[in-house]
């Protein structure tokens, strides 16, 4: 198969762990977008690994590479975009192994701990309720029925009601509009909400039990959704979230930041941002109703590091 060799960007940001480009020798082009390029290591395998090369505006996503220089990203998009639609090509990233360590910034994509404030959650929930008042204009499929399952899923997970979790996940995984179907975004949002609350609103053991219960029922269903959604769900189960998810969750420590966070979520894809935010708000709202929820605590600033 012919190959296209991609020159290395000047600077990159990557998640902590192995360099994403080093996990495979050859990549296939899945999509070339204005702010994201999706590559796949493997072909039809449901477990094929994806790597998203994203622009500064999109931010780093789990298992991806953020190319913060717009010129660099534009050059990559043009190089790969010119090949899209032609015969299948391997994308060769061998040159990227020469990116100097000083040009690689690593980012911890785990959430937390965050001093989630109940009043921020209440505002977040109220704003999202308003968003859900009407179907998104022009949406190919109304995402609100799957968003409505976010609350029941959170409740079932916190109660470790496995049968109910399974039933709800079957109605969420791979369901809804978008290349990451809305139901999958809702699930990622619920997991993000649980992780945000861990050690802040409730004891970490509470959320760990809930996410374990979700994970056990979710993994067997991953083949029912798209590769990109599968990638996001797998990352969320491992506690990894894209930077834009992290920014949304971080706003829950400050009510003043919540309106901007909802506005930003409105801009992710056609419905994905609000789908995901609805999942997060539902999980947090359920946690706040628990008698054992705690007063906000101050997070340890050393916990999350970037280099």
């Amino acid at each position: 198969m012919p190959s296209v060799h991609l020159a290395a960007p000047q600077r990159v940001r990557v998640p902590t762990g192995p360099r994403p480009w080093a996990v495979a020798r050859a990549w296939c082009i899945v999509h070339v977008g204005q702010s994201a390029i999706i590559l796949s290591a493997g072909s039809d395998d449901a477990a094929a690994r994806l790597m998203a090369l994203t622009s500064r505006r999109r931010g780093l996503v789990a298992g991806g590479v953020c190319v913060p220089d717009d010129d660099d990203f534009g050059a990559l998009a043009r190089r790969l975009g010119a090949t899209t639609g032609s015969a299948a090509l391997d994308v060769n990233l061998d040159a990227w192994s020469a990116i100097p360590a000083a040009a690689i910034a690593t980012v911890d994509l785990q959430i937390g701990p965050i001093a989630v404030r109940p009043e921020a959650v209440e505002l977040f929930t109220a704003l999202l309720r308003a968003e859900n008042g009407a179907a998104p204009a022009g949406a190919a499929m109304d995402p609100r029925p799957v968003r409505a399952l976010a609350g029941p899923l959170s409740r079932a997970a916190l109660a470790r009601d496995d049968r109910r979790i399974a039933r709800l996940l079957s109605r969420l995984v791979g369901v809804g509009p978008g290349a990451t179907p809305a139901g999958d975004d809702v699930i990622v949002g619920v997991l993000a909400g649980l992780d945000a609350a861990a050690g802040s609103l409730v004891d970490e053991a509470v959320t760990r039990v809930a996410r374990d219960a979700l994970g056990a029922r979710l993994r067997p269903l991953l083949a029912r959704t798209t590769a990109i959604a599968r990638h996001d769900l797998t990352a969320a189960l491992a506690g990894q979230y894209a930077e834009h998810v992290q920014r949304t969750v971080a706003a829950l420590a400050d009510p003043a930041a919540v309106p901007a966070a909802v506005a930003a979520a409105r801009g992710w894809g056609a419905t994905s941002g609000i789908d995901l935010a609805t999942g997060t708000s539902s999980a947090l709202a359920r946690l706040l109703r628990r008698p054992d929820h705690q007063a906000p605590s101050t997070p340890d600033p050393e916990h999350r590091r970037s280099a």
Partner: protein
Amino acid sequence: MSSPDTETLQAKVFPRLYRDSVALMALASSIEKREGVVRAGAVMATPGNLEILGRSAMLPPDLTAAPDDLVLVVRAQDEQTASDALEAATAGLTATEQSGGPREEVAPQTVREGLAAAADATLVTVSTPGPYAPAVVESALRRGLHVFCFSDNVPLADEVRLKRLAVDRRLLLMGPDCGTAILDGVPLGFANVVHPGPVAIVAASGTGAQEVSCLLDDAGTGISQLIGVGGRDLSADVGGLMTELALDLVATDDASEIVVLVSKPPAPEVADRLLARLAGLGKPVVACLLGAEDADGPVVVRGTLEGGAAAAAALAGTPLAIADVAVDEDAAAPLSGGVLGLYTGGTLASETKVVLGRAGVPAEVLDLGDDEYTAGRPHPMIDPSARVDRVARAGADPDVALVLVDLVLGHGASPDPATPLAEAVRGARGAAAADGRELVVAGSVCGTAADPQDIEAQRRILREAGVVLYPSNAAAARYAVVRATGSLPTDPTLLHRQETA
């Protein structure tokens, strides 16, 4: 009308095709808008989605697809409509695929992002709120890009600083507050659809340039370049920095055989230097300086837009013919009150002031597109509602007997500016009549036959509401003079004259 029994359902599967959700949404929406299409969907073919399609009778029984496949489904009134819709949708997807980079996602938010998406771009248009514009303009200039700056309310000091920077780099900074430009046939801002031709226009006024270019188009000639420089460029503070650069460029442009400068009255010290520059340009030049005395020296000077257009049309060998206002009994009937001008075009308002002022007709003439009226709201050429209110108020004001208006068409302007204005005119005239008065409304439509709004339809809407229309703004102003004084202006510079080369 079709029923579910007679409708047809067709689907197409695109194996392993990923498109972002915004693109899918736009695609489904565009399919559904097609005539005869009952319902459409563009979703990833996950088992969950296929089940939902099935429950809503949108899943063909023989469809086979995998979760990473994109499926388009169309329910339509007949086979052909469904087939055509799928074909169009396929073409849309293919176009995106072959574009070498998606164009469906969010537009670039910065100059850097814009250049990343279009590295060969040579010009940036800036229409941010005024206080933010200087930073964007400077960013573009420092990257070697020409700038079309639509933003208004930009501080004067910033304009001077940035224009000096642009001149140093031989780059155009059109604006701030630049309404229109046409560069190598590409319209920017509020531009009319004019024929290409030998006349280059350098304009310190947006609607002035539009009026001149439309009158030239009407005369049968056309435009090579139209370079806007912003309304303050010929002020003493800015000193004509960009006008001089624009003149340099059209002087060396082979397609530009005749040069027209359009401006509101420039600062005297700037005007003198400018006229000297124009005289040495090496091409026939018409200086259309509103309010100036007409002169026929090395530089042809005209004091109205109409006069400037007529002189340039004559130089191009296609004389402009505008019928004079007839002074008949009806036209000469005395007005019961004063004249009020409600303009969306600033230079059109200025031209009216010149005509009325020289004829000694007192009037209040408002430029509703001025910064004073537009801070925080759209220009009235985009959103006609601000003027509608004022027209309505004029109907209840016994001191107003004649209202002069303009209607500006072209790219960027409201898709149907005539209808709200006509409704307001009807209301105002009705209110005045109920009070025993006559309210006369007169004006002109600035546009061409090729403009997207359909100029004849726009004129018809206004005439049916009782608006007296003339082929130029100056002619409408002359009508106001006739109604206010009983005769045409005596100043010959205010009369349309048949110019010859």
